[in-house]
């Protein structure tokens, strides 16, 4: 079907009649009312939306609650500080153990690394608990918990905590006198574990070199390099592997030291 309608000799409209119908104010008014306010336009929500998301993400990331664990972590604190850390000898503790409700168990798993004397609150599933008694014990002070005797099954388990932090002349991370370091001549661990291999990254005067060494000793030629070219610059000791008398192999935390005179 044709969509056209044809008319012949329609009465023409005069210019005056058309001019009388001119209404610019109406056009202007409609134009103003049809204009979309800035805050309703998509252009507004693009940048504002991105800014809002950025702010929320920043706020979440800056929230100190999220860093609570990291702040409490002595290891991360120690890695950040350039002060040398004196390690004490390892401690062997025995304590009574108890199984608490699952939520509490989870909590103590987290704090077991920190706790030194969590007598009734230690998770018995881990037999060996690593800890450093010299590292801010007040931070790790266990909370006194009231345990419901109905829900708690008491057990007496012997727990052995072994300190496996490597150190050179008692320093795990931070500044260390190069003479003292060479005098010590080895990487210590504890009486049970002995370092059997490690990787050291140092400057040999030409370039930064990475060397894998066997045993726990610091060779004299390495000492010479450290004295000549690495004083004041960081030296990284990584991939430290230790073994005990029974042949159990353990990977130890990496060390970052700064030789000084």
């Amino acid at each position, binding site marked *: 079907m044709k969509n056209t309608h*044809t*008319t*012949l000799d329609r009465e023409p409209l005069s210019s005056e009649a058309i001019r009388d119908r001119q209404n610019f104010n109406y056009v202007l008014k409609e134009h103003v009312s049809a204009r979309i306010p800035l805050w309703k336009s998509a252009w507004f929500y693009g940048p504002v939306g991105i800014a809002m998301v950025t702010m929320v993400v920043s706020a979440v990331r800056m929230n100190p609650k999220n860093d609570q664990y990291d702040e409490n972590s002595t290891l991360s604190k120690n890695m950040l500080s350039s002060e040398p850390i004196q390690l004490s000898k390892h401690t062997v503790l025995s304590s009574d153990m108890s199984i608490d409700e699952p939520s509490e168990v989870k909590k103590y798993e987290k704090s077991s690394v920190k706790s030194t004397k969590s007598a009734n609150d230690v998770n018995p599933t881990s037999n060996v608990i690593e800890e450093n008694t010299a590292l801010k014990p007040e931070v790790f002070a266990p909370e006194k918990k009231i345990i419901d005797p109905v829900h708690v099954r008491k057990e007496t388990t012997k727990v052995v905590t072994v300190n496996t932090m490597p150190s050179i002349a008692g320093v795990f991370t931070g500044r260390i006198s190069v003479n003292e370091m060479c005098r010590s001549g080895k990487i210590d661990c504890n009486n049970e574990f002995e370092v059997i291999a490690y990787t050291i990254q140092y400057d040999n005067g030409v370039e930064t070199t990475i060397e894998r060494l066997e045993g726990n000793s610091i060779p004299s030629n390495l000492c010479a390099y450290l004295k000549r070219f690495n004083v004041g610059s960081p030296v990284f000791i990584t991939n430290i592997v230790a073994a005990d008398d029974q042949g159990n192999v353990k990977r130890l935390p990496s060390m970052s030291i700064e030789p000084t005179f």
Partner: protein
Amino acid sequence: MAVNPIYHQTNTTLLQERDWISEAKKDPERFGPLYTKYHEQIFRYVYQRMDDQEQAFDVTSQVFIKALSNLHKYEFRGVPFSSWLYRIAKSELYQNFRDRKAKRTVNVDSVHLADMIEEFDEVDHTADKNKLFKCLGQLKEPDLQLIELRYFEKRSYKEIGEILEVTENNAKVKTFRALEKLKKQFLK
């Protein structure tokens, strides 16, 4: 053939128009002179294709509202501002037909019909007026539009080209082909 004198403008008037446009871009109230100048032209263009006079006035108002809203997109290219308004009017017209499900109207003047028959080199005008009138209604929209612009509204090929966004020569060729189609139907 006499051509529509309103469309063609001197360089001075074109430059004045450009100034009005740049002022209107900053302040919509300065759009007034352009509205006054082109209201009648646009209305006649719309009314030529519509039955209802009130609807034609409404569509004309819509054309100017749309023009004012999109004025920031307009770029002066040395042609009258009306060519841009005609393009808006065309799209508003078709939108209106779609919305109202109305038929597009072709308003034909007897005098114009006689002119066309003259183009076909026919002698007996009166007998063929009705036939031509019917043939017009059978033309396709693009052809009908060209015939309408050229023979009923008496526009120059340059103006037709600017309204339809084609070159002057292309407008001439297309109009000629449309006329040939009409003639073919008419002489059948």
